[in-house]
């Protein structure tokens, strides 16, 4: 057992941290308040080669592991949560192509995603299919060499700004879940349009649009994996996605925690720094401990993935733990800031609003517990 990063990893993370501290962090508030997709930050991330960390060099990636992808995601999220969310959602398009794609699909779609030339999105959720992902109603009916897509997706991160979409639809509605199929769809294909961009509690500059398909004809070669295997594609993608969400939460909790420590060392009441009060120390100690627990769960899930070992349960544990830790830490960070923490001049109120997202997307905390319980009972019954 070795908890240390290698020298190469250390150097990589220090350099990326320098990038995040210099190019993302000073503008994080501005990025959030702009109410505009952070294209300038995307461009910087692209120049830094951060969009294809675990993708093979052959397809324009860095050919590193998911652990490196995760740690970098944490640093990006700590620098700018909005950019961190773009980074996380982007992988939801890259990973299924990397894992299930044909050679042609990888060349055509994975390469521009890995270099960051194109941004990706993953469209699963529908108005009537949220946690119950197998019940998607969008249809994709085969017609000769094409599939005809009809239906609507909602809440899709990067929607409208992304060029490449993984879309989960049903090719055989009569077969229920066994008809669910995944497709690669390009922005600009006829019959594919964008609807409402959700106004949200936080992440104001992140796009979460409706994707509207009206007789959109997609070539059969854009079928990802096999017809009827879309649920498998979804589950595999979300396993990695959970690590991405977990790490986003860790990054956010980290900056909130740092803000709280710094504030407690400068704010004076009763003639001394509030950090001297035992109750503040109690909060800080808990925050740091919870944060570290969540981080280690997440790194381990990513490490298991890199080792080719089973990581389903661990990724779900990491996601549920870190998202709840993030809620706790950001809320305590506001508490430690007192009234100033509730005001928008300090970033902690934004952190607290942002934190809530992590308990909802890519499987709510309830769903994560379902996944964990299913898995552990399966193991126990063996």
């Amino acid at each position, binding site marked *: 057992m070795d908890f240390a990063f290698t020298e190469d990893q250390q150097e*990589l993370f220090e*350099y990326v941290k320098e*990038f995040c501290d*210099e*190019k993302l962090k000073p503008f994080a508030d501005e990025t959030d308040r702009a109410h505009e997709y952070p294209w300038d930050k995307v461009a910087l991330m692209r*120049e*830094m*080669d*951060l969009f294809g960390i675990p993708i093979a060099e052959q397809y324009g990636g*860095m050919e590193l592991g998911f652990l490196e992808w995760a740690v970098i995601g944490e640093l990006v999220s700590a620098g700018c949560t909005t950019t961190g969310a773009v980074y996380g959602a982007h992988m939801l398009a890259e990973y299924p192509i990397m894992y299930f794609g044909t050679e042609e699909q990888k060349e055509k779609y994975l390469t521009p995603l890995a270099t960051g030339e194109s941004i990706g999105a993953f469209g699963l959720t529908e108005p009537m299919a949220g946690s119950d992902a197998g019940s998607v109603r969008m249809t994709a009916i085969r017609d000769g060499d094409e599939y005809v897509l009809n239906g609507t997706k909602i809440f899709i991160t990067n929607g409208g700004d992304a060029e490449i979409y993984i879309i989960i639809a049903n090719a055989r509605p009569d077969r229920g879940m066994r008809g669910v199929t995944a497709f690669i769809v390009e922005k600009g294909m006829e019959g594919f349009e964008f609807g409402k961009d959700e106004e949200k509690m936080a992440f104001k500059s992140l796009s979460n649009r409706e994707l509207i398909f009206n007789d959109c004809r997609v070539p059969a070669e854009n079928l990802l994996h096999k017809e009827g295997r879309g649920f498998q594609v979804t589950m595999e993608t979300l396993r990695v996605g959970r690590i991405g969400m977990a790490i986003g939460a860790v990054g956010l909790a980290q900056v909130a925690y740092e803000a709280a420590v710094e504030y407690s060392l400068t704010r004076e009441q009763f003639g001394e720094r509030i950090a001297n009060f035992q109750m503040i120390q109690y909060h800080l100690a808990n925050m740091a401990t919870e944060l570290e627990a969540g981080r280690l769960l997440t790194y381990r899930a990513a490490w298991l993935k890199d080792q080719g070992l089973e990581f389903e349960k661990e990724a779900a544990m990491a996601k549920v733990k870190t998202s709840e830790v993030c809620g706790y830490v950001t809320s305590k960070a506001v508490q430690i800031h007192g009234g100033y923490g509730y005001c928008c001049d300090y970033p902690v109120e934004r952190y607290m609003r942002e934190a809530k997202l992590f308990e909802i997307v890519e499987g709510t905390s309830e769903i994560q517990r379902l996944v964990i319980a299913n898995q552990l009972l399966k193991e126990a019954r063996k």
Partner: protein
Amino acid sequence: MRIIVCIKQVPDTTDVKINPETGTLIRDGVPSIINPFDENAIEAAVQLVEEHGGEVIGLCMGPPQAEQSLREAVAMGVNRAVLLCDRALAGGDTLATSYSLAQAISRIGDFDLIFCGKQAFDGDTGQVGPGLAEHLGIPQITYAIEIEEVTDKEIQVRRLLADGFEVVRATLPCLITAIKQLNEPRMPGLKNRIKAKKAEIELWTCESVSAQESRCGLDGSPTNVIKTFTPTRQVEGEIIAGETAEEKAGTLIDKLRDAQVL
């Protein structure tokens, strides 16, 4: 275009400590970086080559570990890296240093431009760039804030002066020194950093650039640093105490009157 950039490796700190006994800089434990103004010089050179084609040659005089700075320059887009490294070069003043660099540049051959930083962070003399231009017998434009135009034969540069700007045109080849406001040096991407790790760094010695050892290093330096020291603070500041802002302002005015400033 063929552009040469002179790069110095310096300790990464703005308040360099001095050993009071020897009067030399304490470098132990201080990480090394590219002299910040040299990063502006590299960026300017790389941008020009990106626009006009050609190559950028990074030239660094320094100890073997200065190779690291050249690798960073390669990651930023420098095409070829030369480290002028010889024991005989140690302890050179600005005259010896500019002579040694000029010899190395003669070995490089024809070039259109030389970029230097306006000064090094550690020595702060600002003399090596101008000295180099004199050794080579070419025009120089110091304190460049904007490269306005470059043609096959000429360059037009806006210089920052203490009280304004000056626009200067010079024929090529020409030497330019860069200030911080010239550009924002890029952070190279991960791929270029990996490539730079494997890049070849050419090692040159005094002999290989036909530099006379008597004109290099300590031997070739008419300037002698007699003493370097951190000045002791002699005037103490005073924080004016008082209950209210009015009271403090009143005390301040009294004091200024006493000192006959008001």
